[in-house]
């Protein structure tokens, strides 16, 4: 359902992704691990369509209505409405914008794209409250401004809530574990696990094995210098934990 072919991309004419290949099937959880500066975050921004990054070669294919389409030709909002979701490492604060209203605008944009009736304010609120309950979160999230004065853990949980509302098919979680204490990490991981299904897939970008104790991946990829240098099962993450990246790189 999602395939990256020979992707080369970078920022300000400096190549960061240097020939990346990856295939993700529905129901799978992939982990991408690698040292700082290996291009993991760049990869997530390129897939989401951030305009600072330029693609020089390759394709990123997504199954849209049973056809593999190159999403590099789509704008970030079109990609999102077609099922790509990037959970940000540093979710952006948007002062003055109410979280519930933001969620509704986002949800309805996706509904419009799929030709489904948009939801009015009250039925949407009821819908979100169910999601909040399902994730074991507190409803006071909704009345607050988007990510403003949220703690690190709250910001990440807000990303999980958005994921639950939009039901994307491919979620890329960019260091969802960074800056979280163990309790928050467990809560976020628990939310992600609840959202896993046969229809959707996840790519977890992380430095640490710790996250993978809570969200168990099907495949682990080691990223270095803009490409995957080794792939394996969940045991590969343990190897990194014990021996470090250097051992795998050299």
């Amino acid at each position, binding site marked *: 359902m999602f395939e990256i072919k020979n992707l080369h991309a970078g920022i300000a004419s400096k190549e960061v992704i240097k020939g990346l290949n990856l295939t993700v099937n529905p129901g799978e959880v992939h982990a991408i691990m690698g040292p700082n500066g290996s291009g993991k975050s760049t990869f997530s921004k390129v897939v*989401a*369509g*951030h*305009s600072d990054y330029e693609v020089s070669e390759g394709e990123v294919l997504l199954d849209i209505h049973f056809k593999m389409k190159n999403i590099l030709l789509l*704008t*970030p*909002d079109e990609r*999102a*409405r077609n099922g790509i*979701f*990037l959970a*940000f490492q540093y*979710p*952006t*604060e*948007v*002062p*003055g*914008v109410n979280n519930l*209203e*933001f969620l509704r*605008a*986002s949800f309805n*944009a*996706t509904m419009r*794209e799929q030709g489904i009736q948009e939801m009015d304010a009250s039925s949407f609120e009821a819908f979100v409250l169910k999601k909040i309950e399902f994730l074991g979160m507190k409803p006071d999230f909704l009345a607050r401004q988007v990510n403003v004065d949220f703690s690190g853990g709250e910001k990440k949980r807000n990303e999980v809530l*958005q994921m639950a509302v*939009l039901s994307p098919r491919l979620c890329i979680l960019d260091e969802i574990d960074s800056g979280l204490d163990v309790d928050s990490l467990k809560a976020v991981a628990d939310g992600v696990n609840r959202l896993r299904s046969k229809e959707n897939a996840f790519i977890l970008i992380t430095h640490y094995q710790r996250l993978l104790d809570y969200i168990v991946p099907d495949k682990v990829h080691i990223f270095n210098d803009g490409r995957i240098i080794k792939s394996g099962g969940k045991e590969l993450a343990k190897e990194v934990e014990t021996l470090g990246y250097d051992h795998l790189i050299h």
Partner: protein
Amino acid sequence: MGQIVESFEKVWAEADQSHPPKNFVRRIRKELESSPWPDRGHEDFKYTNISKYLSSPFISSKKELFLIENDNAYHTITFINGYLTSKNVDTQSIQISELEPESHFLEKPSTQILSLLNWAQGGKTVHIQVLSTCTKPLFIQYINVGSDSQSLIQPRIAVALSPHAKITILEDTLDMGGSGGFVNKLFMATLAEGSELNHYRIQNEGHKATSNGSNQVEVHKDASYKTWHFNLGSLLGREASQIRLLEEGARTQLKGLYLSTENRQLDQHIEVFHDSPNTYSKQHFKGILRGKSKAVFNGRIYVAKGASGVDARQLNNNLLLSSEAEIDTKPELIIENSDVKCSHGATVGQLNPDQIFYLMARGIPAPQAEEIICRAFAEEILFSIENVDIRKKVTRACAHVLNQGGLYAPV
């Protein structure tokens, strides 16, 4: 003969036929005869070449009739093309009459050139006396019908609040497809001891018009004047307020939004005079500018000698949506006293690309993402509107401006 007279002598001659000018009007005309248009050396016109907009010879607007539907939520008085045409006021609290222009309504009348131009036309001043508290707001409705580039529309209103009277006044314009002209409104108010006026004004003239709204208010002991300005329409839309806090305990709050688009220019000039000790003022104006538009914020605070215990605050925030838009923001504090609290601040920012990307990454198209962020920026002012019905009216008017040009999809 001066340039100003050349533009307005036709109007004056016409006006004199139906209403011979009083000495007061003659005196003002004489003063204007010797004055040229203020150039950019004048502080109020530093960023605005006013003669460019007002050099064509003007003629008086025509008297027209127009069927008006009254909204029962308001007492309503209606001006068509600047002439008082109907009153729908069913309360003893408000009395409306027309006065000769020589009546010196304000203790310290303004000498601003555009308000003098309003006086120079002669004609009567609409006098609104608020004798006691009126719970229903008063709606002053201006309707402009069939104006052309030469028509001159100059309504003049004087409001007097009796001691401890309270009222809310809304001024709004309905432009019926006029193609320009000069709208030069003069609104004066005097607030007696302990009275309260909440004053909302929507500048919503047609996009080819030049408009000026002079707003001159005198606030007496313990009285409160709150105003909200929404500067939205006109090719050049100028709003000029002079608020005098004449006696102890007088207070004022001015809030405003200006939404400038295309090649238009919106100016706000605010002067607050703290003439007495223990007087208070707060100003907060926000602007959103698009295209090649321009805006000016010029906020002056005077604190007179001996006026101790004054608290005066001013804040101006701007959001520029295009690299070609221009804002000139100029706070001025003139303080002749040490025992005062004064503060001012101005910010100019652009849309934050991280915020836009975040919203887009959640499926929201770029124009709607921009609109959401602009609305959030404006809402701080919109939410401060105390009357719910007026808040809806204003929000609609603001959304309409932001939607023009098709950049903003409705949410």
